[in-house]
C-alpha cells in the first residue's frame, strides 16, 4: 500500500510550487496516500547544523515524533533533499546512539523511538509497486527528450546516514524518469553540490558550482535537467539566466522536478502543474516532446 506520513517542508509553500502541484497530481493518479504531519516545523536546514549539533537533531526530531505519536506505523515521505538529510540524521542518531536519543527526547519533551523510516520521494517512486502504478497510468510519452538526472549531494551522502548504495552514480531517478519515455543521459555531475545556501551568502564563490553542473549536462547532450528537490531546482532554474548573462554562457536547460515529467506523461495540463511558473522557460520543450502514447513521431 502506498501510504505515508508526509513532511512537505517550507519550500513547498513558496518556490516549490510546481513540485507540490505535480506531486499532488501524480499522487492522485497512482493512489499515493500522503498524510501531512500536523503542525510540522522547519527542519533547520540549511542553518541549524552550523550552529549546534543537538539543535540540528532536535528540530527534525519534533516532526518525526509527531508522526510517531499518531501511531499509524507509517514511514515518513520527504520531497526536499535538505529536509530528508536532516531527518535522516535525527533518525540515525536515535537508532544508533542511546545517549543522543535521550538528549533529543529531553529537548523536544516528547517520546521518540525512531520506529518509522524516513524516505525520499526517489525511495518511494523507485519501489516496484510505485513504478508499476506509474507505468499503468501513462497516457503520453516524452520519447526523444534527453534529460540529465541531477541528484545533488544530500540524497546520497553521507551513505552511512542515507543508506544510498551508489554515491557517485545513483540510478533511481534515471529509472523512474525512463518510465515516461524520456531518455536519461550518462553524465558526470549527478551528485555534485549546487551550493545550497551559499548561492545567497557567497554568490560570487558559489556560482561556479551551478556553471559546472549546467556545462556538464549540456555537454553530454541533455536538453533539460531533472531534479528531486525544491532547493536544487530553484538554484539551477532561477539562476540560469543570470549565469548566461553575467558569465557569458549559452545554457538552454529547463529544470523540471521528476514528478513534473511523470505528471505530464500521465496527462497533466501545463497550468495544472505550474509549468508556466518556472523561471527558465519550461513549457515549449515539454510541448515539443509530449506525444500521445502509441503515436509515432
Amino acid at each position, binding site marked *: 500500500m502506498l501510504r505515508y506520513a508526509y513532511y512537505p517542508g*517550507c*519550500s513547498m*509553500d*513558496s*518556490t516549490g*510550487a510546481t513540485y507540490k502541484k505535480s506531486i499532488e497530481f501524480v499522487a492522485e493518479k497512482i493512489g499515493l496516500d500522503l498524510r501531512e504531519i500536523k*503542525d*510540522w*516545523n*522547519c527542519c*533547520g536546514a*540549511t*542553518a*541549524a*547544523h*552550523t*550552529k*549546534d*549539533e*543537538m*539543535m540540528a537533531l*532536535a*528540530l527534525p526530531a*519534533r516532526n518525526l515524533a509527531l508522526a510517531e505519536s499518531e501511531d499509524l506505523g507509517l514511514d515518513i515521505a520527504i520531497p526536499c533533499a535538505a529536509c530528508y538529510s536532516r531527518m535522516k540524521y535525527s533518525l540515525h542518531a536515535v537508532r544508533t546512539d542511546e545517549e543522543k536519543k535521550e538528549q533529543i527526547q529531553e*529537548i*523536544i*519533551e516528547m517520546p521518540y523511538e525512531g520506529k518509522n523510516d524516513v524516505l525520499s520521494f526517489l525511495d518511494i517512486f523507485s519501489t516496484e509497486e510505485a513504478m508499476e502504478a506509474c507505468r499503468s497510468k501513462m497516457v503520453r510519452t516524452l520519447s526523444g527528450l534527453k534529460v540529465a538526472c541531477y541528484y545533488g*549531494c*544530500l540524497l546520497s*551522502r*553521507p*551513505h552511512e546516514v542515507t543508506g544510498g548504495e551508489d*554515491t557517485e552514480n545513483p540510478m533511481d531517478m534515471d529509472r523512474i524518469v525512463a518510465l515516461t519515455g524520456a531518455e536519461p543521459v550518462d553524465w558526470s555531475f549527478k*551528485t*555534485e*553540490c549546487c*551550493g*545550497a*545556501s*551559499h548561492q*545567497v*551568502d*557567497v*554568490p560570487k*564563490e*558559489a556560482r*561556479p*558550482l551551478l556553471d*559546472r553542473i549546467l556545462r556538464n549536462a549540456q555537454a553530454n547532450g541533455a536538453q533539460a535537467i531533472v531534479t528531486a528537490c525544491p532547493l536544487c531546482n530553484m538554484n539551477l532554474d*532561477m539562476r540560469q539566466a*543570470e549565469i548566461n548573462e553575467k558569465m557569458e554562457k549559452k545554457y538552454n536547460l529547463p529544470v523540471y522536478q521528476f514528478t513534473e515529467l511523470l505528471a505530464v506523461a500521465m496527462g497533466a495540463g501545463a497550468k495544472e502543474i*505550474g509549468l*508556466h*511558473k518556472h*523561471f527558465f522557460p519550461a513549457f515549449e520543450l515539454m510541448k515539443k516532446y509530449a506525444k500521445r502514447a502509441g503515436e509515432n513521431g
Partner: protein
Amino acid sequence: MDDCLNEKSGKNLIKQITRETGVVLHDCYQCGKCSAGCPMAHAMDLMPREVVHYMQLGMMDEVLKSKTIWLCATCHTCVDRCPNDIDIPSLMEKSRQEAKRRGLVAVKEVDRFNDIFMENVKLFGKSQEVILEGLYNVSTGHFIQDMENVPHMLSHKLIGIKPVMIRDRGAVQKIIRKTMKDKKKK
C-alpha cells in the same frame, strides 16, 4: 577572545573536537583526494587537507581564522571519497562553532545568513524564504541581490505577503533556546 591562540589551549580544543567527532587525525596521510573533489576549493584559503594537517600539528588558530571553515558547503564529497573515512565536514562544523564563540568570523555573510535563518524559524516555526532574503539583504547591505527574481515570484504566486506560521511556535522556540544555552560568546 582569542584564547585558542596559545599552544596549550589550542591543543585542548583539538582534543575536544576529535573526541566529539570521533575523528582520528593521524589516520590522514595527506593524499589530497578531499581537496581534489571539493566543489568550494577554488574559493578556500586552506584546502580541506590542510585543515586536517594544521590540526595534526596542533595549530588550531590557523583553522579558526580561515575562510575555509565558513565556505565548506557540507556536501560530504570529501568524506565519501576519503580512503580513511576522515569526517572533514564535522571538523569544519565544530571549528566554525568554536570560531564564532571566539568572535572569529572570517566570512561574515555566511554567519549572518545562518543567524537570520534561525531567527526566522524561531519567530514563525517555519522558514520564510522571502523574509529571509529580505532581512539578509538589508543587514548585509546587498540590497539588490536576487531582487530581479521578485516580480516573477509575485506574479506566479511563488511567494506571498502573509507569513506562514505553525501553531505551537513555543515548542520550536524552546528547542532553539535549550540548545543554544551554552553557545553564548565567551
